[in-house]
């Protein structure tokens, strides 16, 4: 993040290009696009200092629709390209957009290293648990048993949990939201933007054509209150329509449990309080899955750590201070030389 100085206040619409958006009607990506444009307007982000970098896939078309600088690269490599952009010019705000196949399968390695290096990027992973652009194959986040053109009898391999992966590789900011949470999403994105270092946001996104309803067990109206918990730093981990349910830490088994306030002598004081500086708690939150547990949304973890590009440029400054600004003629003569008359 950087200090912005836009000439005038922009609206969400000002961040949209004149290009026709080419996602399927009803795709969750439309809502995310709107959410991101709203976020940038709320942040008063300067379009000229904003870069969107993407890989390949439905989600990766994103930069074409943003009236900022944009680079649609190759499959899986967007975190690497974006790292180069940020290293070359740390003043830029760099956003990375991709899907679960792009960032966790072919590009899983780059996602891992961008996160553990803590380079200041906002990495948005649109997780729809399927390959859309290649027409419906199962992805590394698909549930076991997913029937797809490449797995007609159902997939047999265990999926990866994006948030757990990000926490496990040392990500310093790990958050979750969903395409349909139009108020929640910009708040999470703003936090990601303001965080110095690599910010990882998993956005559950519905693919209406190949994996419709993949998240309805926790996003549909009837169940969302009981199957989602919106975590906030320093606040008790309460959820449910009347905030009557909560999470407590079972210290014997080192896991979170759902309790109901007012039952079995449980009071609000017994409910665990969210601490976004606690990686272990974040990991426990990321592990929760319906139907026994709600899905945790919001900022699961936000740590403090120096950023990679700052450290790299600090070394350059140190070397320049110690050795003086580089003199190429001197460098050419470094070491042993001799003169022929």
């Amino acid at each position, binding site marked *: 993040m950087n200090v912005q100085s836009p000439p005038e206040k922009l609206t969400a619409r000002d961040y949209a290009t004149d290009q026709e958006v080419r996602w399927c009607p009803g795709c969750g990506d439309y809502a995310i696009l709107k959410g991101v444009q709203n976020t940038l307007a709320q942040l008063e982000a300067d379009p000229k*200092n904003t870069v969107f970098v993407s890989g390949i896939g439905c989600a990766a078309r994103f930069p074409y629709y943003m009236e900022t600088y944009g680079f649609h690269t190759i499959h899986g490599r967007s975190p690497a390209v974006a790292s180069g952009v940020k290293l070359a010019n740390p003043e830029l705000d760099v956003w990375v957009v991709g899907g679960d196949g792009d960032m966790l399968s072919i590009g899983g390695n780059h996602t891992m290293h961008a996160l553990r290096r803590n380079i200041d990027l906002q990495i948005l992973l649109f997780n729809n648990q399927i390959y859309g652009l290649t027409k419906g194959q199962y992805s590394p986040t698909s549930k076991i048993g997913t029937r797809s053109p490449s797995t007609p009898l159902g997939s047999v391999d265990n999926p990866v949990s994006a948030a757990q992966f990000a926490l496990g590789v040392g990500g310093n900011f790990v958050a979750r939201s969903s395409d349909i949470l139009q108020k929640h999403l910009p708040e999470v994105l703003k936090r990601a933007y303001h965080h110095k270092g690599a910010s990882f946001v998993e956005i559950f996104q519905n693919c209406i054509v190949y994996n419709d309803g993949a998240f309805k067990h926790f996003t549909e109206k009837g169940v969302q209150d009981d199957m989602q918990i919106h975590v906030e730093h320093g606040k008790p981990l309460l959820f449910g329509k009347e905030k009557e349910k909560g999470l407590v830490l079972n210290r014997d088994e080192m896991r979170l449990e759902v309790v109901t306030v007012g039952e079995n002598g449980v009071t609000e004081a017994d409910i665990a309080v969210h601490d976004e500086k606690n990686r272990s708690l974040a990991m426990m939150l990321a592990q929760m899955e319906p139907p026994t547990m709600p899905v945790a949304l919001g900022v699961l973890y936000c740590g403090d750590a120096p950023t990679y590009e700052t450290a790299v440029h600090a070394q350059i400054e140190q070397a320049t201070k110690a050795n003086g600004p580089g003199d190429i003629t001197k460098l050419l003569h470094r070491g042993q030389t001799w003169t022929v008359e």
Partner: protein
Amino acid sequence: MSEAVAIERPDEDRQEVESAVVRFAGDSGDGMQLTGTQFTMTAAIAGNDLATFPDFPAEIRAPAGTTFGVSAYQINFGARKIMTSGDQLDVLVAMNPAALITNLADVKPNGIVIADSGAFTDRNLAKAGYEKNPLEDDSLHGYRLVAIDMSRLTVEAVKEFGLSNKEALRSKNMWALGLIYWMYGRKRQASVDWLNAKFKSKPDIAAANIAALNAGHAFGETAEMPAELSGFEVLPAKIAPGTYRTITGTESVALGLLTGAQLANLNITFCSYPITPASSLLHQLARMKEFGVVTFQAEDEIAAAAAAIGASYAGTLGITSSSGPGIALKMEAIGLAIATELPLVVVNAQRAGPSTGMPTKTEQSDLYQAVYGRNGDAPMPVLSVSTPADGYEVAIEAVRIATKYMTPVMVLTDGYIVNASEPWRIPDPTGHEKFAVTFRTDPEGFQPFVRDEATLARPWVRPGTPELMHRIGGIERSYNSGHISYDPANHQKMTDARAAKVAGIANDIPEQDVTLGEPGGKLAVVGWGSTYGPINRAVNNMRDEGHDVSHIHLRYIWPLPRNLGDLLAGYDHVLVPEMNNGQLKTVLRDQYMIPAEGLNKVTGKPFLIGELETAIRARLEK
């Protein structure tokens, strides 16, 4: 501070030779590379021309005494122009039986073999595969053998410093160096200074090494050496006046990239991943931080290329480097740089392949990969480095072409070039013609793919520039706007434009000259890359014998120089020696429809001059 003992043997009984080839060979832990570089520096200071060839194993610390753990350093130095590291050895220094058995075949008949008899133990002999001790069974009768117990003499020489036996033996290489210094009448002071500087914080170790160096030298002066080993003299070569240093191919490319970036007024973002023999370029540039150089050791080859492309997109000069297998991994990303028309320099230190092949051995078999090795019609300029020092000019030229034409450029070096060294007259970098990049800042009429009429290059815009926000990507772009386009006619037009842009660079590079000989005649020997030295010397020798043969050496592999077809048409025959199975030969046949013939060698070793002379003679007599 320890000093060289100041007795120098009078030179009257030294035998004058025009040039000499010496190889130091020993265990990979014996310090042979250091010994070789010290001898090189001293030869350079003595005014000789020279060329070197370090040859070391892939294993970092192979089991001691084994043949696969042998490390060697060869130097050819002389009073005349030296073109190669030498076909055959005048002197082999073998520090153990494994070094002897693996290097003996390269020694001239009646050449000198100096062996550390103290290392010829039963155990070491068995490890090397000797049934009997070759120093004692007369099997070396075709050579002038000097067997000396260097191990024992070294331990004695450094006794006063109280080192352990193991530590004392580490100075053995300096004892050997001292002896060879005596043999060629060389001054020791440069090495003494170097040892004192290197072991500044360990004065005992410095003193022990210097004592060993002096002891080896004194042994030569005082011992009863065979009459023919009375010492040699190699006079200074005729060398153009100037200030010189030795330079390896890695160093020259690093300095050239830095100079090129300064001439272009850009900062470098160098992104790479460790691989033999390319890594040394990363090491060099990582130490040039005060020049604003960002180095990024990426998580893999692909990330290195991708990050370099991102860095170019952001307005610095993105550079990536690797060797053959790593370049293969980068190729999809290089295609992105071609498609999005961003500058990028890719340095490929070729090694023997395919697959892992022989990482520490040299080859030039990535020409196809460089010119043709991408999906789609994806042309990119390719330049090659001919000698260790040549990397400087080639790297500058790569930066010029990449930034002027908004294209990736591949620079081909190889395992020989990057490690070998030669004397280099240090140029004045401020005297070079500048080619400062102009970034587009004017919004008037801006579209990201509107081309410059002369170069066909698109504008380069730094993100952060007001009112020029735009999107680029790997999907085919509309001719001017850069918007996504699947229009058939547009793809034809863009493919043609990309090809024309790269082809047009032929008008912006020098015409091909005849490196040695005449522009026409019976036979042209056409080479590229590190075959320069042996081809040039072989053609020179054949011309001295009166043969009608010329040498043409290419720097520009793609596009080829615009006059090359006409030039080659002036010869009856074209012979193309390559350390591959005929890659440039095939390109020349394709481009010019000429019956170019190949001369191909893929042993992991450079051509010998003698091999080329034989081939040239055979071709002329056909």
